[in-house]
């Protein structure tokens, strides 16, 4: 394949036999690059029993899907994944490979980078094509979001990066789109892993993981105690959101670490981020710069969180929460009566 029509690739994520929604977000990223480059956009689909789902990726924007469907890929085992990705990139020589910054993408992409000697940029928030060189410009926050760095990859392709989940909306599903499905049978020697998957225990908490949530209701030390976090959970349930927390709240044992937002926790990209009793330390702010709208409740008028909030409410977190929950419930029941009429 020559250098002028090298494809843009996205790495689809599979859960069981289904395609995880981030795979569609990746295609929205990919389209923005493949169009100006005038090259096909392809998705890589590796899994067990996933081939029947490939059309979903076409409908979400892919021109091609490379499918590797084998029982061996039932679980995500990093060594096997790296092997298959090396095989595919060697065989088809794509120009760009975009993956999601999930625990999987963040594991397999650095390994692939080392395996094939290509550069990798983590957690990009913007991708564009340099009109002069035609190379990929990868923009990512550094140092707790205080700095945005534009990064270019040199040396051999693919130019590789990860992007945060939820940082772009998927394209509208278009079932009339036509695309090419390419089944790839890898050599037998690439199947099999030194690792053994022993089982999965789902978490029982409310809502989606915070990295995937559209609405996050976060609490900090200002929530005073673990019991008050139940209010946040109730609000999260009402709004279809997920509970997040500052490090203080996690360190005090009020919430599990998986809920921690910020520099040493997770970076989040919800549509709405609500912060109750969070001061807004730089390390916390670092995790929420990707939030579309920030609402902060704090009784200190000087709280730094107010500098980054779209709506700042000075007041007692518990009082506001109770009143907000009441108001939403009341509205809910009123609508009920209205529609019942």
């Amino acid at each position, binding site marked *: 394949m020559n250098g002028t029509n090298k494809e843009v690739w996205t790495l689809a994520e599979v859960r069981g036999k289904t395609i995880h929604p981030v795979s569609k977000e990746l295609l929205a990223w990919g389209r923005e690059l493949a169009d100006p480059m005038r090259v096909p956009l392809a998705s890589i689909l590796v899994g067990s029993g996933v081939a029947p789902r490939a059309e979903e990726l076409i409908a979400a924007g892919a021109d091609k899907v490379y499918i590797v469907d084998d029982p061996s890929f039932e679980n995500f085992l990093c060594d096997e994944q790296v092997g298959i990705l090396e095989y595919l990139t060697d065989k088809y020589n794509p120009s760009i490979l975009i993956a999601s910054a999930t625990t999987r993408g963040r594991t397999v992409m650095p*390994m692939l980078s080392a395996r094939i000697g290509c550069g990798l940029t983590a957690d990009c928030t913007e991708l564009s094509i340099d009109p002069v060189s035609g190379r990929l410009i990868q923009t990512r926050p*550094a140092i707790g979001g205080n700095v945005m760095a534009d990064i270019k990859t040199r040396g051999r392709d693919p130019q590789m990066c990860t992007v945060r989940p939820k940082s772009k909306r998927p394209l509208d599903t278009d079932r009339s789109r036509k695309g090419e499905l390419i089944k790839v049978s890898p050599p037998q020697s690439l199947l099999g892993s030194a690792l053994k998957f022993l089982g999965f225990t789902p978490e029982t908490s409310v809502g989606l993981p915070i990295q995937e949530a559209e609405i996050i209701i976060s609490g900090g030390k200002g929530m005073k105690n673990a019991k008050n976090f139940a209010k946040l959970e109730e609000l999260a349930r009402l709004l279809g959101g997920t509970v997040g927390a500052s490090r203080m709240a996690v360190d005090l044992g009020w919430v599990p670490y998986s809920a921690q937002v910020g520099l040493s926790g997770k970076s989040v990209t919800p549509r709405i981020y609500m912060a109750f009793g969070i001061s807004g330390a730089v390390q916390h702010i670092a995790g929420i710069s990707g939030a*579309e709208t920030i609402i902060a409740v704090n009784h200190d008028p000087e709280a730094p969180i107010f500098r980054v909030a779209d709506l700042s409410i000075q007041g007692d977190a518990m009082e*506001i929460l109770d009143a907000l929950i009441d108001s939403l419930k009341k509205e809910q029941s009123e609508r009920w009566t209205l529609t019942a009429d």
Partner: protein
Amino acid sequence: MRIAVLVKQVPATDSVKIDEKTGTMVREGVEAELNPLDLHAVEAALRIRECRSEGATEITAITMGPPQAKKAAAYAVSMGCDSGVLLSDKRFGGSDTLATSRTLAKALKKLGPFDIILAGERATDGETGQVGPAVAEFLRIPALTYVSSIDELDEGHITVTRSVEGGHEKMKAPIPAMVIPVKEMNIPRLCTLGGKLRAKKTEIPVLNADDLALDEDLTGLKGSATLVVNVTYPQMTREGRKILSSAGTKDAVKAIVDLLEEKNCLEAAR
């Protein structure tokens, strides 16, 4: 059993600057600390040693950086690691994660073999989290990322629990293996006075590119595949609306509900 822990010195998070010309971080004159997430890796190593018979486990902390990064290795020793090594050379300067991982892997090969290698989930300066898995791949050993507990460890295998999206998964791998803990794995110990004294007495050897027989083209800026081409300082401050407590709870709640409505975020509540 021999364990290596990769530790990195990072600028204390509040005080970092960037050189606008080169796009690299200015480390001079900024207070430094051991990357907070690496403390969990050190703690994990110490706990493995404690579970095994006396003298059966040896822990080496390895760090790569400018001469003053010796402190990071020394801090790991003061927490309880048996020894520390610094990889330092002008030729290592400007390494991206690929070049860093390649250099660290070279050192691990030279100083090894190690049965378990531990790294932090992410460094608070670069924030990529790429170095651990990439080092594993350079050594062609499995990378166990996001590990929340080590459940079993014998001479041949390690079984861990990983904290992934939506839950925890159990995984068994042959050793040698790379283990990358998340914060929930443990609470790192503070270093004791005795530990500090021991660290003072422990010599931290320094290895350069020649010691590692590392080709100049494979490390530092030359060996890096990514280049920072431009740096900007985003304005994080948002022009927000502010409601003071004097306005009363009712108005505050109304403002929140109105905003949620405007953003179409009330569907679930209805």
